[in-house]
């Protein structure tokens, strides 16, 4: 599914990722943990192709294809989804309009027929029902006036609608109280499938109580420093990241 080989990336000329190696197989859930400033969010933006996040070395192979030269929308159409740490507000654009645009843009890219209004609404209703969400959220402008929890649930809804092959959750737990965290996690878990891989980027172990990973990686100083099973997360919870933060960051 995803193979990251010796990935180097820079922002504003400053190298943040310094040789990341990572392989994610179909259906797996990998957690990437690490201290602040270790390059977690940078990794997610580089994977999604955000402008200004420049790959300076190495390769990202996704389903056998090098992603480096693809635009964000092309990557999205190929099935990469990034749940934002801070979902963005788009004033005046109703959520349903936004989702409709997105779904049809992706379908167009893939050479599939666009959904007409009726097909789309039907599909959307089914998704909100599946996720136990109210339709009221669909009428509101994208993320405008949403609470922290609503914003994250909206990300999960978008993910459900777009049905990605690779979902990257960037600090999805940040800003959530325990109830909201549960609801969002349930949503993510509902979308787990043997074809879908998930990369969970987080600071804290607690999210992993709900979204249980197959593997846990420690990202620090721009590299994967350690890889283990889900028990690694508990270990980190206890000891912190001190072992991985060398003199460079101190």
């Amino acid at each position: 599914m995803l193979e990251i080989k010796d990935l180097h990336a820079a922002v504003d000329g400053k190298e943040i990722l310094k040789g990341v190696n990572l392989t994610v197989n179909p259906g797996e859930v990998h957690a990437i943990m690490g201290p602040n400033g270790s390059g977690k969010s940078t990794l997610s933006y580089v994977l999604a192709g955000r402008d200004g996040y420049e790959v300076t070395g190495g390769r990202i192979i996704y389903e056998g294809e090098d992603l480096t030269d693809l635009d964000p929308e092309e990557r999205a159409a190929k099935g990469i989804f990034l749940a934002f740490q801070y979902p963005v507000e788009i004033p005046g654009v109703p959520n349903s309009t936004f989702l409709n645009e997105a779904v049809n843009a992706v379908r167009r890219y893939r050479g599939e027929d666009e959904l007409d209004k009726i097909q789309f609404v039907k599909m959307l209703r089914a998704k909100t029902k599946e996720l136990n969400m109210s339709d009221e959220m669909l009428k509101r402008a994208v993320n405008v006036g949403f609470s922290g929890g609503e914003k994250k649930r909206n990300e999960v809804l978008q993910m459900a609608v777009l049905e990605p092959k690779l979902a990257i959750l960037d600090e999805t737990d940040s800003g959530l109280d325990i109830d909201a965290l549960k609801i969002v996690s349930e949503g993510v878990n509902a979308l787990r499938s043997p074809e879908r891989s998930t990369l969970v980027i987080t600071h804290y172990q607690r999210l992993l109580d709900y979204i249980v990973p197959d593997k846990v990686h420690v990202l620090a100083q721009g590299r994967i420093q350690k890889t283990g099973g889900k028990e690694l997360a508990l270990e980190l919870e206890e000891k912190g990241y001190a072992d991985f933060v060398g003199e460079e960051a101190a």
Partner: protein
Amino acid sequence: MSATAETVEQVHSISGEKYKYGFVTDIAADKAPKGLSEDIVRFISAKKGEPEWLLDWRLKAYRRWLEMPEPQWSKVQFPPIDYQQYHYYSAPKSDDDRPKSLDEVDPELLATYEKLGIPIKEQEVLAGVAVDYVFDSVSVATTFKKKLEEVGVIFCPISEALERCPDLVRKYLGTVVPVADNKHACLNSAVFTDGSFVYIPPGVRCPMELSTYFRINEMNTGQFERTLIVADKGSYVSYLEGCTAPMRDENQLHAAVVELVALDDAEIKYSTVQNWYPGDEDGKGGIYNFVTKRGACRGKNSKISWTQVETGSAITWKYPSCILQGDNSVGEFYSIAITNNAQQADTGTKMIHLGKNTTSRIISKGISAGKSDQTYRGLVKISPKAEGARNYTQCDSLLIGDKCGAHTVPYIESKNKNAIVEHEATTSTISEVQLFYLRQRGIPEEAAVALVVNGFCREVMQQLPMEFAVEAQKLVGISLEGSVG
């Protein structure tokens, strides 16, 4: 006959003896010679077989025009206009001069029609193709005409109205926009070629949206269009002007005048989508759109609502306004102005509160991209007698890129202590993270920009009649093509 010879002959025929004696009937020329003079004004009036009073009215306007200075207060910049280089009258083109089919039409224009989803038949009309419309539009038009006649609504070219109901025209023409209101309006008064006239009888709710689409044959009304709409007591009308497709036009200078009159309890809703040729990337060859639009809420409880989507023209100078004379009358102005490349727009409104408890609402959305420059200029004036007057103004500017400009110039003159005047303004940009977010969901960059801009304009879009709104949304995207990246 060569163009030069033609001109020479026309000048000769016009300045010749003949003319002094009435010069009415046998003018074969299709085009007035270049330039503007009293004779040209007479030529136009004669050509249209107008009554004496209207000729006098035109001549009065012409004489005032000579003395009037160009308006200097707006922010738009352009070289001085050489009024003598224009033709002020030309008969509608004969079929021989028109393209025979869409194959002969500029492919770029067709591509735009395609993007807007305009049906082939309408494309032909818009591109000026010489086709026989009898089967489609006219039959539709006759059905509409019949419906309108049943309820007594008059909707026809102003020249026809001068024959059908001269007293009505005479009673209201120039009463909202006086002859010498400003230089551009004054020019229009002197040389206006045609336009629409609408009269809604008392108590009648016009059974359909009146649109210039229905008068396809009158589409080439020229650059000096004049529209007069009168809504009698307790009546209602919604009028749509313009169209989303780029208009083919060889005339650079457009100085239209629109006058609206609403009597007691009447309501007029006037919607415009304007997409005239903006010129090339440097604005070269684009249309100058200098329009005077004004509505008078003459009766009590009357209402006039302007909605405009302005995306075309090299230069736009336009301030649809309301004079709130009747007690409890309401004025509204909803505007979207989009400028790209080298376009300049100075637009806004005036709300003049004269009557008691008059209210006005201004929602203006300006989007600047490329190296364009845009100004919102608005006046809210409350007279001493306007007890309980209220105004709310909201002015939002959106900037795309770092070479464009947006300016907001609100004037507020309140002479009544009890009036409430509110003004809110914001300036924002489309942020990189907004675009990234949308693109990450699969929406290509230009579509993402269009989506954000449409969201920004939503309040105004909602004011447009349904079918207009759908086209206008697409137009937003097309107008901003090439503005990012």
